[in-house]
């Protein structure tokens, strides 16, 4: 069940340039169903940042009632969030949306997880969940540069991990799709999260495997009421049928919706 809770910050640290890892504790964690879901944060009680900010779940520890978010300082909301301290409370609405279907990979099967930038975080929680189900995970992570790369070791602990960076400062120079091609990475299912151009490139370059994409859009309500975050369906790309990223997504099967 979705709920609103003032969760307590129990860890908060900078893990790369402008990238923060934030661990929250609260009852809401019990309701989290699957990797790929997100929470909607109210950064201030005031009016600086009136509407909430959506951030994916990067890790979940139900026993400890903890969840971890990894976010990039982007604008005012995330800047203000980054100033919060351990012990502070954050108003969280969640868990929201439908995540990655774990059942799309069967035990013993191979999953390829492809992430770009701040699309990488939800893949960590996903990878852990897949691994727990006996699925072999391979990661391809793209970053702008080594300065903003994070969680390399964490991913390596779960499975083979390839890095790519735009400037070549970490991993191979180029895009994640270059890595997949070069390394000839195959899998039974691909899960991806990252910038739209990356998702589009994947849709084109990996037409044969089941591919699940996590999308982003500017949101207001986060629960399906305001219609801020819709996208067209591929069966009716100009018509009136649509999906809400916050409620029907953020994860969709490739081919289901039109990528913005």
């Amino acid at each position: 069940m979705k709920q609103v809770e003032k969760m307590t910050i129990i860890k908060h640290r900078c893990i790369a340039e402008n990238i923060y890892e934030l661990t929250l504790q609260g009852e809401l964690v019990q309701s989290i169903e699957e990797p790929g879901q997100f929470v909607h944060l109210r950064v201030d009680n005031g009016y600086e940042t009136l509407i909430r900010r959506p951030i994916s779940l990067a890790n979940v520890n139900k026993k400890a009632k903890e969840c971890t978010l990894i976010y990039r300082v982007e604008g005012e909301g995330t800047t203000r969030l980054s100033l919060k301290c351990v012990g502070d409370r954050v108003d969280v609405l969640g868990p929201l949306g439908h995540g990655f279907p774990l059942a799309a990979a069967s035990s013993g099967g191979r999953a390829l997880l492809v992430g770009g930038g701040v699309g990488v975080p939800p893949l960590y929680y996903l990878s852990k969940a897949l691994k727990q189900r006996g699925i072999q995970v391979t990661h391809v992570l793209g970053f702008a540069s080594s300065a903003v790369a994070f969680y390399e070791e964490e991913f390596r602990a779960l499975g083979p991990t390839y890095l790519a960076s735009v400037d070549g400062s970490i991993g191979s120079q180029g895009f994640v799709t270059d890595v997949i091609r070069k390394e000839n990475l195959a899998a039974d299912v691909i899960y991806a999260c990252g910038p739209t151009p990356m998702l589009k490139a994947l849709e084109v370059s990996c037409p044969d495997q089941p591919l699940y994409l996590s999308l982003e859009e500017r949101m207001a309500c986060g629960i399906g009421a305001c219609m801020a975050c819709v996208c067209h369906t591929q069966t009716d790309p100009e018509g009136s049928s649509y999906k809400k990223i916050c409620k029907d997504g953020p994860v969709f099967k490739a081919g289901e919706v039109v990528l913005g």
Partner: protein
Amino acid sequence: MNETTEVSLKVDLPGLPMKNPIMPASGCFAFGQEYADFYDLNQLGAIAIKAATREPRFGNPTPRVAETRAGMLNAIGLQNPGVDHIMAHELRWLERYETPILANIAGSTIEDYLYVAEKLSQDARVGALELNISCPNVKEGGIAFGTVPDVAASLTEKVKAVSEKPVYVKLSPNIADIVTMAKAVEQAGADGLSMINTLLGMRMDIKTMKPILANKMGGLSGPAIKPVAIRMIYQVSQAVSIPIIGMGGIQSVDDCLEFLMAGASAVAIGTANFVDPFICPKIIADLPQRLEALKLSTIEDLVGRSWKTCVTV
């Protein structure tokens, strides 16, 4: 002073017998389903549902929302599944609640409005219609309905002729003289007014140097616009004798009180639902003690208090 006052929150508006003066605003609550996950919708005084149009509409391209100081811009573009779908599904689903429904309707042509109004007014679940003549996010004609009093009056008259239910006209604040507009639609037979809709606004993305919204412009809502709403309701409530549903930036029980004092008979809450899904029931719960603190026992005692010179308490 010290005896306990029996506070009544009831408000009786044309077509909307409300148990309290609080309703979610159109477009900020869809058709209720999402908020039903959080609380029992029977707690609400009424529900204003998302605008219905003749045909299903996808609306504008995304991004459709942007944040501003104490406000937000939206350019949804009246996305909705069309009146037939709404009657067959959304209104049917709402049958499980007793809360009166205010059905918001929009269109690009008079014919569209009449078609939707006639149909929706026949639905047993609908208590009254809310004529959205002011949506800033629709390109064709939308603005003229909202800014030219004669055009608005003629639309109102025609809708009244086909509607079996009371008709509220939702006024646009993007206008120099709101009083003339309000009187014109009253004269044309409107049973009530809703005000205000959003102010037309815009925001640039500093990085791309382009507007954030794909539609470029959008409607400004939230606390930022409250002073404009209060002013317009204060002006209009003294000039007309039909009730006003007030809205624009309400975030707290005290904001509600301001609207009622200004002259609104009930209030609608929009953007605040996105910030706090529980905002409507919270404000309803806060009302009795605030009324008591003001030594008032009914909502009506508060309506227009800022300008009424003598009031019988």
